[in-house]
């Protein structure tokens, strides 16, 4: 297969299709689409390495047997390797969504298709999102073809402040796409936590401290399954690693004073905390930095959406950056499932609020990759590559992904949405009823 066809695949595979091609030929075309390890050399692209090599303006990248064989300037093509002209194109590590419900829900409003939360379940921390995750959800294809290669999927809270255990996955859609099924524990404080804990912030924090004590004293405290202060034996066991700082604990919170309480909590228990939200983080940025707390922020949140967020401002992420806080960018205000592909738009808006391009881009690639140990955040010689070829600056809303590689595998650039697009494209002059197109 000629490499050239990769870059035009998205536009042309089905657009030009049935005008002249018999059905059999169409099947042949789609048959080559699934993930394959493909040898190729991309020449003269703008290569964002996220390593000490920085951005290579006229960069070449040679991929062979799924690994980056060479990366730099003036790389020559071994015989038999296809060469793609990268002029005007960008090559970057794949985008990494640090907080989502991807794979856990098909239609948000249809409870039968929505495995985010288990509001009637008696188990909480021990619910694993990995056991709900569906790698074949069309949402994943729709997400992948926009240049997102990795997602964190987070279970929501049910009867109490605990959502359960979340996962890291790539967007390949394969049954092996979960990279870490027990990556972190999710907890909600703030307004939401107060609601699920029975009605107050005090109850929520008390429940969390009780649960950490239970997990810290597990298993000795549990003579019977219900012997914990806050958790059952099963849930206390599930919190064991997070309670000892061995895996991160995600804590949802926005109000500045809640963030200060979380800092105390981290000190008392030695936790590895990632705050989700931190809309008022700018007010306590120095404290967050000093405490080594990581945060996920949405740089488009600037309204007092709740009384936890009256201090929300567009340059929150800029102020957190100035204080030296370790942060990733998320899409909470827009969508967490079907439209997490706006991640690059959110990072772009962080740039327009004053963050440097490099930092904004790191916050949707290298930073989450470092936090979740996926190796996908940078382009290194000798490593299996997860990268995207773009037709321009990936933070520009007008830019599109031309091809996507995950762990060295060339990815299918067709999704349910692109199939609908091609069927109904005004350029599709097929006269048969749409269902035949």
């Amino acid at each position: 297969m000629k490499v050239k066809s990769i870059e035009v695949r998205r536009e042309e595979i089905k657009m030009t299709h049935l005008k002249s091609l018999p059905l059999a030929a169409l099947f042949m075309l789609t048959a080559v689409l699934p993930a394959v390890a493909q040898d190729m050399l991309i020449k003269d692209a703008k290569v964002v390495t996220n390593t000490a090599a920085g951005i290579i303006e006229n960069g070449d990248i040679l991929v062979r047997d799924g690994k980056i064989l060479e990366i730099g300037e003036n790389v020559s093509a071994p015989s038999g390797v296809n060469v793609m002209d990268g002029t005007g194109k960008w090559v970057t590590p794949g985008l990494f969504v640090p907080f989502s419900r991807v794979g856990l829900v098909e239609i948000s409003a249809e409870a039968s298709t929505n495995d985010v939360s288990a509001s009637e379940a008696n188990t909480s921390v021990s619910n694993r999102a990995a056991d709900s995750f569906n790698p074949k959800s069309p949402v994943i294809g729709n997400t992948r073809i926009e240049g997102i290669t990795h997602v964190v999927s987070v279970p929501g809270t049910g009867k109490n402040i605990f959502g359960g255990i979340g996962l890291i996955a790539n967007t390949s859609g394969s049954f092996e796409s979960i990279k870490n099924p027990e990556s972190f524990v999710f907890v909600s404080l703030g307004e939401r936590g107060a609601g699920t804990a029975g009605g107050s912030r005090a109850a929520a924090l008390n429940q969390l401290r009780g649960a950490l004590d239970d997990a810290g004293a597990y298993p000795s405290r549990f003579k019977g399954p219900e012997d914990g202060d806050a958790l059952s034996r099963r849930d206390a066991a599930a919190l064991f690693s997070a309670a000892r700082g061995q895996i991160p604990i995600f804590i949802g919170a926005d109000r500045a004073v809640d963030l200060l309480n979380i800092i105390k909590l981290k000190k008392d228990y030695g936790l590895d905390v990632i705050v989700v939200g931190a809309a008022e983080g700018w007010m306590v940025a120095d404290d967050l930095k000093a405490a080594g707390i990581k945060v996920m922020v949405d740089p488009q949140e600037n309204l007092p959406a709740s009384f936890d967020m009256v201090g929300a401002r567009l340059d929150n992420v800029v102020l957190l950056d100035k204080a030296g806080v370790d942060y990733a960018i998320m899409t909470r205000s827009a969508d967490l499932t079907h439209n997490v592909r706006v991640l690059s738009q959110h990072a772009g808006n962080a740039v327009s609020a004053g963050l440097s391009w490099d930092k904004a881009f790191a916050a949707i690639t290298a930073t989450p990759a470092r936090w979740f140990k996926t190796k996908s955040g940078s382009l290194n010689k000798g490593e299996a590559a997860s990268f995207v070829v773009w037709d321009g600056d990936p933070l520009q809303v007008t830019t599109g992904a031309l091809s996507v590689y995950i762990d060295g595998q060339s990815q299918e650039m067709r999704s349910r949405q692109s199939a609908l697009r091609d069927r109904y494209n005004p350029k599709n002059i097929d006269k048969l009823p749409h269902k035949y197109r």
Partner: protein
Amino acid sequence: MTLQKLALLSAAAIALASCGSAENNKDNKTEASDKAAAFASTYQPMPSETTFITNAFIIDGAGGEIENGSILITNGRITAIGSNISGSDDAVTIDAGGKYVTPGIIDIHSHLGNYPSPSIRAHGDGNEITSPVTSEVFAEHGVWPQDPGFDEALEGGITTLHILPGSANLFGGRGVTLRNVAARTVQAMKFPGAPYTLKMACGENPKRVYGNKGGPGSRMGNVAGYRENWIKAAEYKAKRDKGGDDFKRNLQLETLADVLDGEILVQMHCYRADEMAQILDIAKEFDYKVTTFHHAIEAYKIGDLLAQSGTCAAMWADWYGFKMEAYDTIRENVPFVHAAGACAMIHSDDDLGIQRLNQEVAKTWADGNRAGLNISRAEAWKWLTYNPAKALGILEETGSLEVGKRADIVLWSEEPFSTYARPEKVMIDGALAFDKASGFKPTSDFRLGQVYEGQVDRSSAGGN
């Protein structure tokens, strides 16, 4: 209906009323409009100076671009625009330095004010979820002018916006078109002369909300509900047209009869292609027009039908999947509808999305062209201003930069289809409403004394 025609109608009505004619339909309508005048617009533009914007890259909103163009603004209106015009001696000159100038953005689907921030229970004033037919309610009566969202939308270049009741009901109530100006009352925001609209809703929402409350409980019930009420409206209209002592006003039917008279524009929440086609048939049956389908997730499947009926579609760039009828969107929805010859536009339905509608258009425009279309940037800009103005019946007043129109203008920091572009100046009726450089901007009462006002130093922020 044009604003001029509206103005003529009301002038005629006043004349008739003053001469005491007891006769015909006009009288009853007069009574109705006099009652409605209780909420008449009191909008007054902020004071403006004669202004000459020069050295600008103008995207005029009507499909044209002028490189190195100028605009002369006199008394809040555009009095000249082109590449070869001169200012006047008394004009304040703004040298755009080659930056982009566009019409102010119009959002045809917003709930600012009726679902304001903070989003708490007490602020839920957008849906009258008490009956599937509530055409008697007015969105403006639930609009809180202190919603901080208005101020942030202004910083995103929004100069006009249309506030709708929610989509729980078959007939949700009247929508209102507002100037995005700092005001203490909603009357002072109302776009002078803009026609009222009627919010209607298809599909999942009404049947979900009323399925266990007497119906409708299915799409069949939805359609029966529309038709039953249009029959009532036609009867009411006939009585109103006839006049006489036994005619009694009914707020619910008055709104529907005004639709049948072509004075109120139907703005209908509808996702699925097959449902939109059925609604167009109902409109034929009862001889009214659906001005715009809102959300219209599947509009791209029936672009030809929309073009034939002259019905617009207001869409998102990429939001989907939150319910079954929103499953089938494509990122090229807007450009595909446009390419079919129908009137397409963007909308937000969101208090953050409204702050960057230029980016939403940029996304869908680029995706459409990647799919093989060849739509110019200037043409795509119509989705932000010209087409929503048309669908709101205010095109003769705003929506493009043309002589005679209100000077609703945005000066951008860079090319406005860039993610990095932000409005630097926003003018409404020729008056500067937002100026990034000087920090001139409105601030809601709600923000005062809150940490938002505060400084980065936490010791001094809030707590006062």
